[in-house]
């Protein structure tokens, strides 16, 4: 009976202490390390947007947000012992990275559509250009033939001047 009571007491103490130890071990981690998967994923999405054809001006805002998140996580690293502030800064950095991800995904779609449209337009323009060049060539040939015929009929036979 006594054993069961002790067991229950130990269980309650462990239930209180375990979350505290978990919190301590997680706070020992560097914030940039904690957010590393988020940084990595946001950065990869920015790269994908660039590969899809996003311009420098379009990615400039994303780079600003990435640097802001980096600054927030570094500030969280430097905070001396204030867990609440640290968690708040990390949450803010996390939210900023979320914005980067959303914006980069949207930008990737827009840029890839634009790149596709531009490519199609370039090839269609090439086809139209080839058609116009052929028409110009045919019309030029026609004018040239008419000119030669006209010149032929304008020819006169003149006696040779001695």
């Amino acid at each position, binding site marked *: 009976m006594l054993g069961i009571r002790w067991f229950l007491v130990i269980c309650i103490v462990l239930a209180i202490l375990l979350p505290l130890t978990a919190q301590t071990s997680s706070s020992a981690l560097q914030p940039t390390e904690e957010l590393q998967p988020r940084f990595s994923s946001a950065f990869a999405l920015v790269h994908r947007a*660039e590969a899809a054809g996003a311009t420098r001006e379009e990615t400039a805002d994303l780079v600003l947000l*990435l640097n802001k998140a980096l600054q927030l996580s570094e500030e969280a690293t430097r905070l001396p012992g204030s867990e609440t502030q640290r968690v708040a800064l990390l949450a803010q950095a996390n939210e900023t990275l979320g914005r980067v991800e959303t914006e980069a995904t949207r930008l990737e779609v827009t840029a890839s559509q634009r790149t596709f449209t531009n*490519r199609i337009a370039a090839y269609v323009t090439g086809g139209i250009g080839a058609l116009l060049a*052929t028409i110009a060539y045919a019309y030029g040939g026609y004018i040239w033939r008419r000119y030669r015929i006209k010149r032929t009929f304008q020819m006169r036979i003149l006696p040779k001047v001695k």
Partner: protein
Amino acid sequence: MSSQSRRFLLVVFLTFLVIFEMVAYVTTTPRPREQFFQLYILGANRLLSDYYPNNDPNIGVGDLVRWHVGVTDSMGSVQLVVIRIKLANQTIRPPDDLQAQPSPAPLITEFRRFIQDNETWEMPFFWQIVNADMPEGYTRILEMQINNETYQVPGLTALDGHNFRVILELWTWETQSETLQFGWSSGNERRVAWLQVWFNMTSSARQ
């Protein structure tokens, strides 16, 4: 129009089509370019001079050294660059360019930043030795302040304070392996960029 003329025009059209489509392909396909970073360090007046206070490489405790460190991204995409600051003496190996290995010198601190293609990130790098001692003819640097932050130096000594050096290494984030790497990959090659500036901390400088 005779069928022969039509056939001839068709050949002309196809010839023009091939030429024009080739032009379209060339204009819409991005050209491959050399990918690289530039890493530089400038003196107090952002020139290639005045690296030391009073142009004297003998630096004393509390002497503020003003440098400007910059990185230019010519990789064609956004990059995460990390500048690692290390402090070494004469015997510690510098980074290895051929094997792309960083220096084993103790890391003091690092600066991180995302930069765009063709963007230059330049930052002030003001540092001073704030604590050092001299055990048996050696000078040992104990604490260093960089941009108003103080860092502990893990026991770095030099005989009579000669030939200390600050090493700056450029690290980048490799998207595929999701790790920080020394230098960067350009095609199948590994390239690195690093700088070092020597200084002394002799007894005369410390007095």
